[in-house]
């Protein structure tokens, strides 16, 4: 049996994490100004905590996420529940910061720390580390609620850098220390948002391309991935916002460098959930979601199906 270890990469990731944490700490200790939120503009970032709202200049935060796998979709689209004796639970702590550059443009950086707990057939493990860093940008062509009946329109872009450990470079047999994809991922998207009184609805669509990957003597490329997120909700007078969301993703078959397309290697998944944003003190906000992937045969392919929740605490400056 052969195992590959790359201890130097762990030191690199720890250094990156330390620098990022220091940068966030510097942001947190900056002197705040008083918040003056507008009811029209607080709802649309309900499920994207690293997004600045219309009146915000910058923000930092942490989002905790837990997800338990309850089954999986096969390549054919059939669904099977996980064995009762197995366990696959993922935890994630995302440190993020966002900064507005001008009235319409904002950038964000997110560092995920990922842990996985797995057990199967008498073997169990727990491990984790830094995941793939993600930088994102948003340009608001128009802001929702500012031009009469015209919806808000934004252009979105993101890049994920493979700073995490791909599963086949993990240090343990159950690959619990696998925290990344091993590929760069670039996304372009459009978001449309409409404010209706105290309510809002938004639809974001993305095209994502993952760079090819070569590992263990296998070389393959990935089809573009299409995804969409629809969110709707209601903002109360004190800016507390409740809402629901649904997301779907679909990616075509993988291509092998030697043998062309691989049958039944597409991926798909549909997720739905509920969300709550709760402002507290002057310049803080708590955002939480509960979600589940939908285990409906034919609605997913080659994806685990799970349920879980997120909890984000955000400090913002206006």
């Amino acid at each position, binding site marked *: 049996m052969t195992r590959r270890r790359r201890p130097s990469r762990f030191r690199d990731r720890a250094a990156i994490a330390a620098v990022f944490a220091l940068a966030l700490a510097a942001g947190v200790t900056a002197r705040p100004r008083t918040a003056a939120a507008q009811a029209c503009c607080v709802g649309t970032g309900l499920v994207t905590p690293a997004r600045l709202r219309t009146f915000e200049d910058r923000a930092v935060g942490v989002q905790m996420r837990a997800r338990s*796998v309850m089954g999986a979709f096969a390549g054919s689209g059939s669904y099977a529940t996980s064995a009762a004796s197995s366990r696959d639970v993922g935890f994630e702590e995302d440190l993020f910061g966002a900064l507005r550059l001008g009235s319409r443009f904002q950038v964000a950086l997110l560092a995920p720390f990922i842990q996985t707990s797995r057990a199967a057939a008498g073997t169990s493990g727990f*491990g984790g580390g830094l995941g793939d860093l993600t930088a994102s940008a948003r340009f608001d062509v128009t802001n929702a609620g500012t031009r009469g009946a015209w919806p808000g329109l934004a252009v979105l872009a993101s890049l994920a850098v493979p700073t995490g450990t791909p599963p086949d470079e993990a240090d343990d047999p159950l690959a619990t220390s696998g925290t990344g994809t091993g590929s760069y991922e670039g996304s372009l998207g459009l978001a449309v948002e409409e404010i209706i009184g105290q309510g809002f609805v938004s639809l974001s669509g993305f095209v994502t391309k993952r760079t090819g990957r070569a590992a263990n003597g296998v070389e393959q490329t990935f089809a573009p991935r299409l995804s969409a997120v629809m969110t709707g909700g209601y903002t109360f007078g004190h800016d507390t916002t409740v809402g629901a969301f649904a997301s779907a993703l679909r990616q075509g078959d993988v291509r092998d460098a030697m043998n062309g397309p691989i049958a039944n290697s597409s991926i798909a998944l549909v997720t739905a959930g509920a969300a709550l944003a709760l402002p507290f003190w002057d310049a803080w906000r708590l955002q939480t979601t509960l979600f589940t992937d939908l285990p409906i045969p034919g609605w997913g392919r080659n994806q685990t199906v799970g349920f879980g929740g997120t909890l984000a605490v955000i400090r913002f400056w206006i």
Partner: protein
Amino acid sequence: MSARAIVLCLATALLTGGACGTDPIQSTEPPSFSADPNQVLASDSGSLTIAVRFAPAPPTVGTDAVQLSFVDPSGAAASGLGLAVIPWMPAHGHGTSVNPTVTETAPGIFVATPLYLFMPGSWELRMTISGSVDDTAKAAFEIP
């Protein structure tokens, strides 16, 4: 791994960005394969027929093993082969953290173990055959 150990590992992983580990594999029994193959496939050139037997059968999440029996076009065991086996998840673009050891237990019959198939989904066993025949083959299977 106990809940307390998981909490400790969680805190350690958060602070260091590092990993924790996996409890030792408990099974020491040699794998037992059924007489009937789980699947029969041809190598990519068509010159070899391969009978695939998993243990346990069908394969499950965790620690598995596979027996691969090679016969030539005449139906005789294909001797003098070398074999490398790589588990791979094509939809996700990754393999396993440990590559299995391949042992020839009889002429043309190989056992690859351990297969640490750590998550459900579509997997492949990618075979590179050398020696008396240079060829490749791929066995695809699902783990619920």
